[in-house]
């Protein structure tokens, strides 16, 4: 739509969402949001309930068509009519509610909808499925010893890992994770955070929506705070304190600029109990 001003800057970004607006009847869900994500970058998208995080991500995943605004993906202006359009470009979204089939085994879930076939496409190539699944899980450092057990028998963290691994099998350029660590035990959160690091190290951009703020400082490069349909703040995760982030989320304007927070941030992170020998 807009002429290519600042095109040089844009080509280095994996995706730029510019002035995205979406209105549901009387409700302004998105009031002109601009968000950019670099290759291999991990963005934490935070905000209170109804801040517009999920709507923004659904726009990016093609599940919601915005009223106006521009999405630039790898330097190309794109528009998505369906999730399939977004997926073809390499945008994968892992939904909150563990989109797995409990009764199907790990390998079957990883390849659901695109199973390797034999005999002219008539039969499943079960052996290859398990072989590929094993390779794939190993490549992502996901420790699931057996690929032939139904995912219903796995722990929450393992199931989430399988869900993310499935999204990664599509070879995405951008992975959107909606609350991947909600409802997980502490030890299992580790599994998922490790996986996010592994995936981003492979050059995949990740947008992480979560209410667990301590997770954000563990894996994110930047923190984007949404408030009532706008992007309120775009913060460097390494130079931001938890207090600063919280005050941005609840929109306390009296907290000043945050430059002085840089020093405080390190201390805060050291105090964070889940921050261990991980880095």
């Amino acid at each position, binding site marked *: 739509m807009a002429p290519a001003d600042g095109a040089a800057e844009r080509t280095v970004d994996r995706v730029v969402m510019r002035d995205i607006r979406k209105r549901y009847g009387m409700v302004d869900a998105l009031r002109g949001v601009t968000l950019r994500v670099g290759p291999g970058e991990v963005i934490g998208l935070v905000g209170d309930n109804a801040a517009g995080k999920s709507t923004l991500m659904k726009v990016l995943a093609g599940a919601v068509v915005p009223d106006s605004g521009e999405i630039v993906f790898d330097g190309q202006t794109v528009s998505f009519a369906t999730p399939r359009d977004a997926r073809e470009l390499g945008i994968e979204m892992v939904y909150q509610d563990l989109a*797995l*089939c409990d009764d199907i085994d790990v390998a079957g879930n990883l390849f659901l909808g695109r199973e390797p076939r034999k005999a002219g496409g008539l039969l499943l190539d079960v052996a290859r499925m398990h072989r590929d699944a094993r390779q794939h899980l190993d490549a992502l450092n996901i420790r*699931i010893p057996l690929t032939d057990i139904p995912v219903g028998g796995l722990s929450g963290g393992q199931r989430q890992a399988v869900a993310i691994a499935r999204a990664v099998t599509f070879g995405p350029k951008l992975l959107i994770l909606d609350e991947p660590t909600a409802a997980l035990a502490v*030890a299992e959160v580790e599994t998922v955070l490790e996986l996010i690091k592994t995936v981003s190290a492979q050059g995949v951009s990740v947008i992480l929506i979560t209410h667990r703020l301590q997770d954000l400082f563990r894996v994110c490069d930047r923190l984007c705070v949404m408030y009532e349909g706008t992007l309120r703040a775009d913060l460097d995760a390494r130079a931001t304190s938890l207090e600063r982030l919280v005050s941005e989320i609840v929109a306390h304007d009296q907290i000043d600029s945050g430059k002085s927070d840089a020093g405080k941030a390190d201390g805060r992170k050291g105090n964070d109990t889940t921050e261990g020998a991980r880095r």
Partner: protein
Amino acid sequence: MTTSEPTTTAGKPPVVSERVVTTRAARANAHIGKHAQTIAIGVVLVLLLIFFAFSADRFATTGNLLNLLRQISPTLIVAIAMTFVISTSGIDLSVGSTVALTGSLLAIVLQHGWDPTLALVAILALGALIGFINGWFSSYQNIPPFIVTLAMLSIMRGTALRATEGYSTPIDGDLWIVQLGQGRVAGIPVPVILAVVVAAVGWITLTRTPFGRYVIGLGSNGESLRRTGVNTRKVGLAVYVLTGLAAALAGVLIATRLSSGSSNAGSGFELEVITAVVLGGTSLFGGRGSMLGTMLGALTLGVIANGLVLLHVSPFYVQIVQGAILLLAIFANSKVWARFGAVRK
């Protein structure tokens, strides 16, 4: 490795080992749960065979066993198709009425001088169409299949009664089509051969094809399957076409075996079929289907019906026994086997 690394809390190493154990136990449980049900129904079948072999004189004869297999063939054929439907967490109550309608119409069109081959193709197409209607309402319009197929049960039975005016229509014994119900190949009744073929194809389809995988996925978590790009509505519709087609084939087999098409055929047939499927361990909540279980379930029902008759038990008891078995099987599915982790809903 990674989970044991952060040692901020002392309780972490035990958690790791517990998780590995959990995983192994989970696999063992899942596998035991999956096969225990099939083994259990297999054991029940063997016990029944032994019981009737000793208590009923003519039970363990080749003639009787072949007759038993022929009697149960239509049930088995439809039960195989029904396994797909129930695995998607659907149900098809209209199969019994479809048997009556297709059998009656077959006899009527043959009486009108239709070519038997044409009549057979037309009847099977009608069965598929009935299934298509069931599937369209349930899968594309999201109306509970229980209600859709219950309505179709009434419509089909009524149509069969209207078409025959309640009379049986004889089928000319000289037509080749009669061989479908009465013929034998190398001493084995044709319906048995057909049932074995259908069972083999059904088994491979459920366990080894993408379609079978999607049927299980649809029953397990349809939304998840849809998000992976599979056309779940088409899968949901296709399973009803399978039961419609199977019910039409069963209708043809029953009508040709009796050389007569009757609008009263197949009453209670849907109950028998669903009992066979549930007895075999297929979950009514979807996501879990066992073809071997369905075969054993159908055979068990056949053995009970046949054995009780040979013991001169009143045939009215057979219905009571069948209903009781259905109830017990559902109870066992949802309560007893749940301990093995096979049922999670």
